[in-house]
């Protein structure tokens, strides 16, 4: 009923292999893209941009990045916060050193720098696996935060160690700094999200992605059939860190405007992004979005309901909010250990058959 698939034939491998093989899904995807790019920018205000949409989009990029490493290549990482810090501090140094270059190029370069740092910290993954690798990446997290706190060159010798994003424009529109309009900030982040999701989707269903998944499922078997673990693992670290670096750069430059490494990119951030990936669904691009939405939007929504509508004291609401989010995480993981993406997949399968399940 919901999915009318009559007359929906695929006559080529290309049709069969596309990202949205069901016509209705495909149309829905185009509608969402259209609304996101052409309707939302006209109705967005400061609150929606700064409190809801920017964090959602930026965390979605970070979650896509971590999902490539953890979900597709099976390498557990607790260094996401540190890699985001690399992105943020790279973009800050680039912005202040080359003010004439476009901020978009700076963000991409920051992603590139983070990719290299990620590859360097990914080297131990060739020898250590599983939980032990998680501990090694934890070292990256603490080392990077310590480094950006310790070496004043990274924060241009400012008295307090804070970095502040100066104003930069894209096509004459300010996208960083205080004067940036919510629509401009939103569109820049949206562009990077679409870019990240598109690249990630196409990488993961191609040869590189298959190599990652082979390594994830059984690395010895993968090696025997000719997957080079060195290139597979390091490329996963590189691509993952590239996206995480872009997320960190946008988080600092576009969303927060000022940041302090210990507070903005601490271990909490690593866990937050890891939880997004686990709750959303390991090895799923949609899951990255679902996880980011769950952990970014739900607390804001609960806050608005508990404080705004019910008028509860703010501290009580904050505590209850933590409990509700925690309980929901446990609930979802018990009901569907493979995350929201799997839940959505099951729902879709049911809907395709409905109302004739047999």
């Amino acid at each position, binding site marked *: 009923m919901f999915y009318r698939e009559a007359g929906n034939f695929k006559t080529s491998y290309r049709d069969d292999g596309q990202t949205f093989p069901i016509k209705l899904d495909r149309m829905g995807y185009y509608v969402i893209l259209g609304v996101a790019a052409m309707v939302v920018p006209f109705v967005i205000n400061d609150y929606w941009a700064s409190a809801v949409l920017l964090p959602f989009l930026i965390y979605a990029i970070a979650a896509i990045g971590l999902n490539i490493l953890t979900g597709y290549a099976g390498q557990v990482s607790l260094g996401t916060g540190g890699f985001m810090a690399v992105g943020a501090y790279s973009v800050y140094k680039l912005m202040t050193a080359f003010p004439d270059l476009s901020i978009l190029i700076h963000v991409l370069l920051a992603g590139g720098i983070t990719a290299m740092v990620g590859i360097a910290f990914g080297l131990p993954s060739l020898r250590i696996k599983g939980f032990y690798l998680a501990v090694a990446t934890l070292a990256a997290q603490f080392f990077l935060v310590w480094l950006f706190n310790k070496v004043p060159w990274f924060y241009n010798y400012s008295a307090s160690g804070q970095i502040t994003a*100066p104003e930069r424009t894209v096509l004459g529109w300010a996208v960083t700094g205080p004067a940036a309009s919510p629509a401009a900030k939103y569109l820049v982040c949206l562009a990077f999200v679409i870019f990240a999701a598109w690249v990630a989707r196409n990488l993961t269903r191609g040869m590189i992605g298959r190599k990652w998944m082979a390594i994830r499922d059984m690395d010895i078997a993968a090696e025997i059939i000719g997957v080079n673990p060195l290139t597979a693992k390091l490329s996963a670290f590189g691509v993952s860190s590239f996206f995480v670096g872009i997320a960190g750069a946008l988080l600092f430059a576009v969303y927060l405007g*000022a940041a302090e490494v210990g507070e903005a990119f601490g271990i909490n951030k690593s866990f937050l992004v890891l939880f997004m990936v686990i709750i959303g669904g390991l090895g799923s691009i949609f899951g990255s979005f679902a996880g980011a939405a769950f952990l970014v939007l739900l607390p804001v929504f609960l806050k*608005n309901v508990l404080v705004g509508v019910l008028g509860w004291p703010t501290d009580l609401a904050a505590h209850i909010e933590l409990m509700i989010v925690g309980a929901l995480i446990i609930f979802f993981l018990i009901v569907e250990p493979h995350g929201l993406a799997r839940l959505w997949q099951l729902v879709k399968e049911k809907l395709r058959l409905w109302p004739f399940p047999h």
Partner: protein
Amino acid sequence: MKMKLAALAAGTMMAAAPAMADLIVPNLSYRTGAYGAGGTQYADGFNDYFTLLNERDGGIGGEMIQVPECETAYNTEKGVECYESTKEGALVFNPLSTGITYQLIPKVSVDQKVLYTPGYGRTSAKNGQVFEWVFNAPANYWDGASVAIKYLLDENGGDLNGKKIALVYHNSAYGKEPIRTLTELGEKHGFELTEIPVEAPGQEQKSQWLQIRRDQPDYVLMWGWGVMNQVAIQEAANIRFPMENFIGIWWTGSEIDVMPAGAASNGYKAVTFNGVGTDYPIYEDLQTHVIEPGLASQGGEHIGSAVYSRGMYAAVVIAEAIRKAQELAGTSAIDAPQLREGFENLNMTQERLAEIGLPDFGPAFELSCSNHGGNGKARIQQWDAEAQQWTLITDFTEPDSEILEPLIEADSTAFAEENGITPKDC
């Protein structure tokens, strides 16, 4: 699900928008998280003073004050959310977090809101020519550092040559603020400064205090907040560091910081710019109008504590600035730019403080277009563990402006250049 969520959230936001008639002073507080213990007391003091004005005087100049509260948990991302959700019609923000302050400084100048950061935030915001919308009177971190060193100079007959002073600090923007001043002061007075960072939140400080035990500094200064303070004072007691040689900044000088160490914390000192305790006439009014009718914020369990008093002091200064702004604008329904004028023409005198019912509660100071930070006077308080109270042991002391002025000039000029601001001429 997402659509529904968005629609619901939109609906709730509409409901949350405050009525526009009153003066709105949002309270970006934090009652949860690692710093919740201090944040709660501050927020209570802030709320209670405005409740008192509303209940006793019917607001300020006939306008009721609304204090919508928003929980930031000392987290910059939540701080952004809170700022955006409360800025509609708001006059002034007081986020009680140096990190959030740094984030709001560029935003308030675009949105034209006043940012009032008493005793925290960016020190060079004292320069009103560059930081048009930010005020940090009566004292900032550099003032605090200088006043502490001045006190130590007095203790040592004016000579700190060859002394060793250790700075234990919260490894964040907040904790790093005084380093530059202390380095300069060290060069001037010939003392040796050791910097000892503590990673947030600071529950683990064994290695730091081991270092202090080994180095044997003559004095320890501390820039801490939250659980870090209690741990540091306990550790200092454990290594038998003499408490009277241990001086904290105002955020490291509240009852909850010294209580856990019990009698061992006797003699601990802290810099402060406001009085403590309930021995002020205003508490009679507070009793009748706020506490007895049950209107005290969160039940009023912290009334009179050091951090509560500081929250109240912030509210007092904001209320006085509103009064001044109403007088200047000739209308009681002022907006944020008018409040900014009120702040720039604010003259807090001891007489006025006495009128309010808080004699000698804070320093007298006067603000102007170029001076947004007052004179930076502060005093030292000492903990009496037996009586369980703070005693003020010095008078208000002026900081060393010879050192501070050039530093403020340099830092604010750097900010102006980085952000393309032309300093206002005044």
